[in-house]
């Protein structure tokens, strides 16, 4: 089967897997299998970060992201962030558990001193301790909420990222639950970004079991709803899409800017990868350094299909969950299913 080949149009986004796969917690759905003692990928040095930043700045870099593992395990992370914020808006993806008062002070000082946005993305997977810690580990819920409070008290509004593990019917009550929890924890203007769960890493085995049971539940629900509405609404949002791999035909008329491979690269201690999602795929390694990395990539993984379906998953604005708009002569303005008042409380 011939898969589409995507050329790098421009490095808009440069990602650093700054602590490799080392993390202080081990989430059940981690897409790159990070955890305590996991050293598939190692730490980046500050010299390496500086060198690759210079390369990307010279070609017109737009934004910088630090991920891991857990970035705050790196002893020089704050120094790296200062370098980065001198050049471009910068985002850190963290579980929040290591953000002490002192770190929050430093981040706030940095944020005030730059003209570019500093985004701290804190992951949370449930709005109750029970639900969150079942996925992310004991004690993580309280520590992550502490981080959001510490940051917001200092003028930083963290972007709380939550992986969608609920059905569309539960969307609004779930989001309202997150808003309520964050406000109760002392974060008064909560910002939330929803991520699709990805059929990668630990999530792959977890999802396979869940999809089997979800499909049987959906089948029975669909029978009940036969004469009502589209049964696909009841399908769990995190089920692996049926179409597993991309074809060239699928990309005809598709906005390639929604695919990270057209505008992003990831730097790790083992070389340059096409995107953060494919870091476990050896074929997604494009070279040693940014300046010598291969400028195109063949989309042959299921994760590429996720990016196609959901849009720029890793960016700071939520993924485009509903897909691109189609041209029609008579748009359908049937009443939205959403009742936003649920969220305003």
């Amino acid at each position, binding site marked *: 089967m011939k898969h589409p080949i995507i050329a790098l149009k*421009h490095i*808009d986004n440069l990602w650093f897997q700054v602590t490799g796969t080392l993390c202080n917690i081990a989430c059940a759905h981690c897409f790159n299998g990070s955890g305590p003692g996991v050293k598939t990928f190692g730490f980046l040095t500050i010299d390496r970060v500086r060198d690759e930043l210079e390369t990307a*700045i*010279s*070609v*017109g*870099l*737009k*934004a910088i992201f630090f991920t891991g593992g857990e970035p705050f395990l790196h002893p020089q992370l704050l120094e790296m962030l200062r370098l980065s914020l001198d*050049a*471009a*808006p910068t985002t850190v993806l963290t579980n929040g558990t290591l953000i002490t008062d002192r770190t929050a002070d430093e981040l706030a000082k940095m*944020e005030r001193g730059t*003209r*570019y*946005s*500093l*985004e701290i993305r804190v992951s949370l997977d449930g709005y109750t301790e029970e639900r969150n810690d079942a996925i992310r580990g004991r004690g993580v819920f309280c520590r992550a909420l502490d981080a959001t409070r510490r940051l917001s008290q200092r*003028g*930083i*509004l963290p*972007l709380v990222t939550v992986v969608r593990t609920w059905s569309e019917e539960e*969307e*609004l009550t779930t*989001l309202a639950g997150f808003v309520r929890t964050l406000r109760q924890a002392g974060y008064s*203007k909560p*910002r*939330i970004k*929803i991520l699709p769960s990805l059929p990668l890493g630990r999530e792959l085995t977890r999802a396979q079991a869940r999809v089997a049971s979800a499909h049987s539940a959906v089948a029975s629900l669909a029978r009940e709803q036969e004469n009502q509405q589209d049964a696909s609404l009841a399908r769990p949002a995190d089920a692996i899409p049926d179409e597993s791999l991309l074809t060239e035909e699928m990309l005809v008329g598709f906005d390639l*800017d929604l695919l990270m491979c057209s505008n992003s690269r990831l730097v790790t201690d083992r070389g340059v990868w096409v995107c953060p999602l494919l870091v476990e795929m050896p074929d997604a390694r494009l070279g040693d350094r940014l300046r010598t990395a291969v400028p195109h990539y063949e989309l042959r993984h299921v994760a590429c299909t996720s990016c196609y379906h959901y*849009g720029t998953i890793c960016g*700071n*604005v*939520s*993924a*485009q*969950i*509903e897909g691109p*708009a*189609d*041209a*029609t*002569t*008579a*748009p*359908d*303005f049937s009443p*939205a299913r*959403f*009742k*936003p008042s649920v*969220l305003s409380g």
Partner: protein
Amino acid sequence: MTRLALFGGIYSNYHALEVALADIERRRVQAVYCLGDLGAFGPYPDRVYPLLRAARVGCLQGNYDNSLAGGLTDCQCGYTDPRDNHFARLSYAYTFTHTSEENKAWLRTLPQNFRLEIEGRRLLLCHGSPRKINEFLWESTSPDQFLAYLLDEADADVACVTHTGIKWHRKLPDGRHFVNVGVLGRPENDGTTAVWYTLLSVGHEDLNVEFVPVEYDFQALARDMARERLPEEFIETISTGWWTTCLEVLPHKERARGRF
């Protein structure tokens, strides 16, 4: 010295447009340009068209205009937050339904950029960014080298954009300029009710950017919006100066400045 008046994002706010055009008239500019998004958010979308035509405003197509002209199902703002999406849908459905076929046909004829050469400088006017109609160029997420790259790619010395709803100007270290001209449709999330347009003075030696506040009868607009049963949240925005919807796309710095 050549003087231009530039604005974007009218969002059907014909009250502000009337005041802005009268103010521009007094300032004796050589040309007036609207960088797109004529409709959205506000009431009676057809009312802005005769005003723009009478004042001979050169109009570009914004993402909203492109959607209306092409009969698309949404405004192409790319919202995914369910609350933002809810309001975006209401606004788009209202605007689509209340824009005449004649005006939609006219929107189809609009270009997506203008290129001007003034006093030896190459100017590019566009809606979102030089490379994409719906790319948001916020001040806090547009680093110098990226703006320089966009200008290089566009063969331009000056680029003027809108789309985000918040104005800014940057003179790059190499002397080129990037201007977000702001919008007339709604205040810019700063707690004041004024909306903004831009005066661009282009000379041999330098280029001057002046942002001009427009005070208009927002209460009249609020009454229109209530009559048309547009959302309370929209009325709150024009009455208080704080954004209540479409917050998801705001980067950290711009979001932190607002009330919500």
